[in-house]
């Protein structure tokens, strides 16, 4: 257990404190009686009780009986009246370290539990993939746990069964073939050492059984690329902190690459100083991504042409592996990138995206080797995934065996292959022919429905396991709550098959590590691993990669430049579709498009014009014989002659939230064209389909909203006047100034660091019990998020620069909302918080009209549903709002209160870092800093002392407490784009 961010200090009650407390407190009435009577009444006088005195003492004793927390614990060893969860104090959250997987890669988290209920996820500062931050999926995992649509019983067909009956059936099935003939197990990518060991043991016990792996977002290309370059599959790992020049070839290392949260942190830190070491980022991509939005120099290029670009780059850098080929036409982007790379040998980095074919990866490795980047900005480890065979091949083998009637029993552990296996794999059809098949999953999804047995899985927050992070760091995943519906983990299921009946997940994981570690000192090791959330050992995985001699990479496929290409991308908020039933993620505006509740076919403005379609027009997308219909979304900055579809939508059995939302792009995804297809036809159908975006206007209209500076301008600012110059610092006011003498809370948001990932939005939603409203309400403009991430485009629609701006409540000192509220529901507190008193609000909505930032959110209808399991998720420290009430960002006032209580107890001021708002904690790039403006040393004051600091709409004289630092870019010398 770790107790960040609020150390559970009351549990540590040392003896001197206790002695001191003994002086001040009395234990019971007898003790109090004596002191009172002794001091005030002479001994020979009979004790006379006056009514008032009696009542006073009765009240005191009753209060004492009712609130044991007000007194100190007795010094003697006592036994509680019942078993309580250890380390739980009523009303105090307890944090447990664990890890949550994204596409198989773990990231460390701290799970906040309130009275045993997991309510919120924070990042684990000790974990290398987190450093205290998380992505959106970890934030939303807690809602997944409490999802009322999770399956609650074992099902055989449509009959409710028990685990025992399933184990019986399993035994009977295993008895058919003692050598495991016909038994197949299908998992997703395995990064759990224990699970891998179990699978190995199982295959050893049943030698003819086979284990297959498949997940739709796999790293086949990465492993194949390293195998091509180095002769063995390796996992590249990047050190952006050491890089000066970064070139991304369709690699979204800020948004979706394994380890992206950590990469974003390193990247932002290397850019925050505007010194000469500031990273310059070159991006070539076709589908706009978070990384592309951060590019200093961006080249918009179709996915299929990245290979030729990589070839050209390799040739220009003198990489031997690149075959001579058709020269890419003179290209300023490429010339600038190559020049910069050559100047920064050893501090440059080229990254290839997972979507790109192995050849691109191999070329990129060759380039990095050529520049001497290995060991500086890139290093290689053995793959994080266990036995990283081609997953596509693995799936193909499985289906072939199924078709050949070689499979009698199929056990699908997690995943949802019926939904997301390649469209031409025939997995679904082949599944029908398997006589016995079971599926372990959180909910009864598409695959469960086609299997005989559906087994409810234990959620990651309910079960024991272990997982590797992007760099190989292992975390023991510990449960924070007992399985809500008696679900079991894959470990327990495999133990049943292996004949280790009744072994708990705890025993399995613990034994695995005990074997590995040895018995000596294991208890301490184990406790330490659980408490810290990381197993710290020197990474045994690191390798020095040596390029294969004579490596030569040609252009494997030349896509016809005259046809339209189709690119598949994981949905920014639903991933591969497993999060489709998560309402937070469905309603989270997708970065760049701000779409919610559904996906769309992304095309460039030019292509839309050629097709004669507008956003929301439905087109038919055809690849070979396969056809789907999808609404169009015009995406500025998208490559021309290219269309991107997001996977993960169109589920038919996701649950009450996700079923039927969006269109299913897997229907077009074949094994041959897993990431992109060429010769795609687009035909407008004339129909329209409503889409729900939270931001409908993309331009700043020439207003001073997001400030954009180049590095040179920013540096010049320190010396001279800052653009825009001449802004009056403080405007006159009729009201007397208020001296905020105690604390004075403020926030600074660095737009140069913000990557627009929207983690703040969902973290705020989890922390503050913010309801979801559904698609039709979002379309009406009624989404409830307290912090939104605005996205603006600057420049031409074909080659825009993308700007992000998180906008929470500005906590204005001269808040326009306060003066217009007739009932004083919107008021100012002594620390400068603009607070909203929910139970005073009558809902005139004048405050919202008068808020120039439009950050207030109104409960137009009764949005918060009274679902028991969802109620359990709610933060007990935050009021749940009823309909008709206005709400907004409070600077996480409950966290301020908690810090104040802790500080008061130890008789000190709240120090910097005691209060961390939910958005600040989750931010991967530390763009958000919060603190006390009266503390000159506070981090927020450091940020605000920058000459670049500015207030949004300062001309309105609202004097916001939240201010911004401009976006600072680092364009190449001589670049026209600023």
């Amino acid at each position, binding site marked *: 257990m770790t107790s960040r961010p609020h150390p559970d200090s009351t549990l540590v009650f040392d003896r001197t404190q206790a002695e001191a407390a003994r002086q001040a407190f009395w234990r019971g009435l007898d003790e109090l009686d004596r002191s009172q009577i002794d001091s005030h009444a002479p001994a020979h006088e009979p004790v006379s009780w006056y009514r008032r005195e009696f009542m006073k003492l009765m009240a005191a004793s009753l209060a004492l009986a009712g609130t044991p927390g007000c007194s100190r614990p007795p010094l003697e060893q006592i036994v509680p009246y019942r078993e309580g969860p250890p380390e739980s104090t009523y009303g105090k959250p307890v944090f447990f370290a664990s890890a949550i997987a994204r596409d198989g890669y773990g990231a460390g988290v701290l799970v906040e539990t309130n009275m045993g209920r997991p309510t919120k996820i924070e990042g684990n500062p000790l974990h290398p993939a987190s450093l205290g931050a998380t992505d959106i999926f970890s934030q939303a995992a807690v809602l997944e746990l409490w999802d009322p649509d999770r399956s609650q019983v074992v099902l055989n067909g449509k009959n409710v069964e028990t685990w025992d009956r399933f184990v019986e059936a399993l035994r009977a099935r295993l008895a058919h073939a003692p050598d495991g003939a016909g038994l197949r197990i299908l998992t997703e990518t395995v990064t759990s050492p224990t699970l891998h060991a179990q699978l190995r043991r199982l295959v050893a016990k049943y030698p003819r059984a086979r284990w297959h792996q498949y997940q739709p977002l796999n790293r086949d290309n990465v492993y194949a690329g390293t195998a091509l370059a180095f002769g063995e599959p390796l996992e590249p790992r990047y050190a952006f902190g050491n890089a000066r020049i970064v070139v991304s070839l369709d690699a979204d290392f800020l948004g979706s690459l394994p380890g992206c949260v950590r990469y974003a942190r390193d990247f932002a830190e290397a850019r925050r100083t505007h010194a000469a070491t500031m990273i310059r980022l070159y991006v070539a991509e076709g589908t706009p991504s978070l990384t592309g939005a951060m590019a200093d120099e961006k080249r918009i290029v179709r996915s299929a042409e990245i290979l030729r670009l990589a070839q050209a780059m390799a040739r220009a850098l003198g990489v031997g592996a690149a075959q001579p080929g058709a020269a890419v036409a003179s290209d300023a982007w490429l010339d600038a990138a190559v020049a910069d790379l050559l100047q920064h040998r050893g501090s440059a980095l080229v990254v290839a995206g997972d979507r790109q074919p192995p050849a691109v990866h191999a070329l990129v490795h060759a380039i990095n080797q050529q520049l001497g980047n290995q060991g500086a900005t890139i290093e290689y480890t053995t793959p994080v995934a266990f036995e990283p065979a081609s997953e596509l091949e693995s799936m193909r083998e499985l289906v072939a065996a199924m078709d050949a009637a070689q499979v009698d029993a199929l056990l699908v552990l997690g995943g949802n292959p019926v939904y997301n296996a390649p469209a031409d794999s025939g997995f679904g059809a082949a599944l029908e022919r398997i006589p016995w098949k079971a599926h372990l999953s959180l909910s009864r999804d598409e695959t469960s429905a086609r299997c005989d047995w559906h087994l409810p899985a234990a959620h990651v927050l309910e079960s024991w396991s272990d997982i590797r992070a992007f760099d190989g760091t292992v975390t023991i995943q510990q449960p924070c709550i007992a399985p809500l519906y008696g679900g079991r983990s894959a470990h327990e299921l495999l133990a049943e098959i292996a004949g280790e009946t009744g072994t708990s997940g705890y025993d399995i994981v613990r034994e695995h590590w005990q074997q590995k570690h040895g018995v000596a000192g294991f208890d301490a090791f184990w406790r330490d691993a659980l408490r810290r959330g990381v197993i710290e050992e020197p990474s045994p995985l690191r390798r020095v990669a040596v390029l294969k001699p004579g490596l030569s990479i040609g252009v494997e496929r030349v896509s016809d430049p005259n046809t339209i290409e189709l690119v598949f991308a994981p949905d920014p908020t639903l991933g591969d579709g497993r999060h489709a039933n998560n309402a937070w993620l469905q309603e989270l505006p997708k970065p760049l498009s701000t779409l919610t509740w559904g996906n769309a076919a992304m095309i460039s403005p030019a292509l839309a014009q050629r097709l004669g379609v507008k956003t929301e027009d439905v087109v038919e997308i055809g690849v070979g014989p396969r056809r789907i219909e999808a609404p169009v979304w015009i995406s500025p900055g998208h490559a021309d002659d290219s269309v991107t579809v997001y996977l993960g939508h169109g589920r038919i059995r996701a649950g009450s939230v996700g079923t039927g939302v969006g269109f299913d792009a897997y229907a077009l995804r074949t094994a041959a064209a897993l990431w992109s297809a060429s010769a795609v036809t687009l035909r407008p159908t004339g129909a329209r389909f409503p889409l729900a975006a939270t931001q409908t206007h993309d331009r700043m209209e020439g207003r001073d909203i997001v400030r954009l500076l180049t590095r040179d301008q920013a540096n010049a600012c320190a010396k001279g006047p800052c653009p825009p110059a001449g802004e009056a610092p403080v405007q006159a006011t009729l009201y007397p100034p208020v001296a905020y003498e105690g604390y004075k809370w403020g926030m600074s948001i660095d737009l140069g660091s913000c990557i627009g990932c929207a983690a703040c939005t969902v973290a705020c939603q989890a922390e503050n019990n913010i309801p979801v409203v559904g698609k039709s309400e979002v379309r009406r403009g*009624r989404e409830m998020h307290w912090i939104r991430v605005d996205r603006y485009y600057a420049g031409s629609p074909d080659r825009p620069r993308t700007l992000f701006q998180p906008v929470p409540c500005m906590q204005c000192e001269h808040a326009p909302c306060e003066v*217009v509220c007739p009932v004083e529901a919107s008021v100012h507190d002594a620390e400068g918080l603009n607070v909203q008193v929910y139970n005073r609000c009558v809902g005139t909505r004048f405050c919202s009209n*008068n808020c120039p930032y439009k950050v207030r959110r109104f409960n137009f*209808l009764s949005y918060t549903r009274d679902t028991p399991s969802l109620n359990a998720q709610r933060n007990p420290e935050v009021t749940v709002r*009823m309909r008709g009430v*206005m709400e907004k960002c409070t600077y996480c006032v409950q966290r301020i209160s908690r810090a104040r209580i802790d500080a008061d107890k130890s008789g000190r001021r709240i120090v910097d870092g005691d209060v961390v708002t939910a958005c600040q904690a989750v931010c991967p790039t530390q763009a958000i800093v919060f603190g006390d403006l009266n503390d000159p040393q506070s981090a927020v004051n450091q940020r605000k002392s920058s000459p670049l600091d500015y207030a*949004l709409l300062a001309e309105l004289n609202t004097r916001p407490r939240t201010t911004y630092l401009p976006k600072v870019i680092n364009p190449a010398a001589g670049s026209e784009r600023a």
Partner: protein
Amino acid sequence: MPSESTLAATPVLRGHYSDASITDKIADIVLVQPAHWGWIAGLGVAAAFTLLFLVAISYLLAKGVGIWGINEPVAWAFAITDFVWWVGIGHAGTFISAFLLLLRQSWRTSINRFAEAMTIFAVAMAGLMPILHLGRPWFFYWLIPYPNIMNVWPQWRSPLVWDIFAVGTYIIVSILFWYMGLIPDLATLRDSARVRWKQVAYGLLALGWRGEARHWHRFDTAYLLMAGLATPLVISVHSVVSLDFAIGNTPGWHSTILLFSGFAMALTLCIPLRAVFGLRAFITARHLDNIAKLMLVCCLIVTYSYLIEIFMAFYSADPYTIAMTMNRVQGPYAPLYWSVVLCNVVVPQALWFAHVRASPLSLFMIAIVVNIGMWLERFMIIVVSLHRDFLPSAWGMFYPTFWDLATLAGSIGCFALLFLLFLRFLPAISIAEMRKLARRLPRRA
């Protein structure tokens, strides 16, 4: 074809009437005449819409204001538009009865009663709207300063609190003014009524009026005082309602635009009234002409306001106000703006022509157009200013729902129902004042 001179020469009372014939003519509508088919049909339609109003309100209370199309950023739309519109209509009634009384305009006599009734019913509709638009309407009384255990007073800086006082005062004064004027007539009805319950009812309402000289002396003094009280209220209420917007920092809420719809509504009501109840002798072409002229004056003031608003936007050089103005003229709601200009600026120009003012039908049409135009204008001020303010990322659109329209239509229906009932239960024209007028006129003629 009537000319300016013939219109101006038209008497405000046509024909020769004695006290008794005036009494009969007006009181008979209430006491004797069987219900006119037009009245019954109107009542049926109005009742149906009133029912719709009740359904809309019930559903609103059950579900919340989310049944309307309001959102972020457009947190106010139909309800507040309706509110301001109804208040504007109310003002004209007070203007006609109180302003013109003070100015000793004799032509007001035959129209002041129903203009006042119009005021009361319009303000009643107006008063409902801000309560219904609250997120939690059952706590509307928190806006009123009253001693409470929470020890909280309203926020005096909020114009919504001023609204409570302004509209509250206004409706009280309007009712008093109206009721006071009714007292002599109620006594007349009491005396003319032949049915027992009517005698009792009107008798109670007449407060023992006996028509003594002392009564008349006090009545005249008090009535004049009430008029003196009501007149500044017209200005103050509208100013406060305007302040609702002006206090806000939303661009587009800072200019003056005023009561225009009221005269149009007065015309809309009195033209069918005189036709249906045969009151052409009392409400003559002269009355219609005068109201039409007032409408024209208001139209010109409104036109001036529109122009000055555009001028001020550019003169201020405030980018947000300029952007708001450009958005009104050419943004997504531009058709609305041009409709407003058409309804409130272009169409009323027809009133320059005497033969247009002499034609009840064309006046009725123009009045309807102006009523629509004024509603659209309020909608434009509220919604079009809100939907695009400072941060383009927060811009949005407002689309009304069925319930928005039902609430507006229902409130009009309810207003009409009240007005139709008023016509049959109270004298629509002041009997006492008409008698005075009839006595004064021949002398002048």
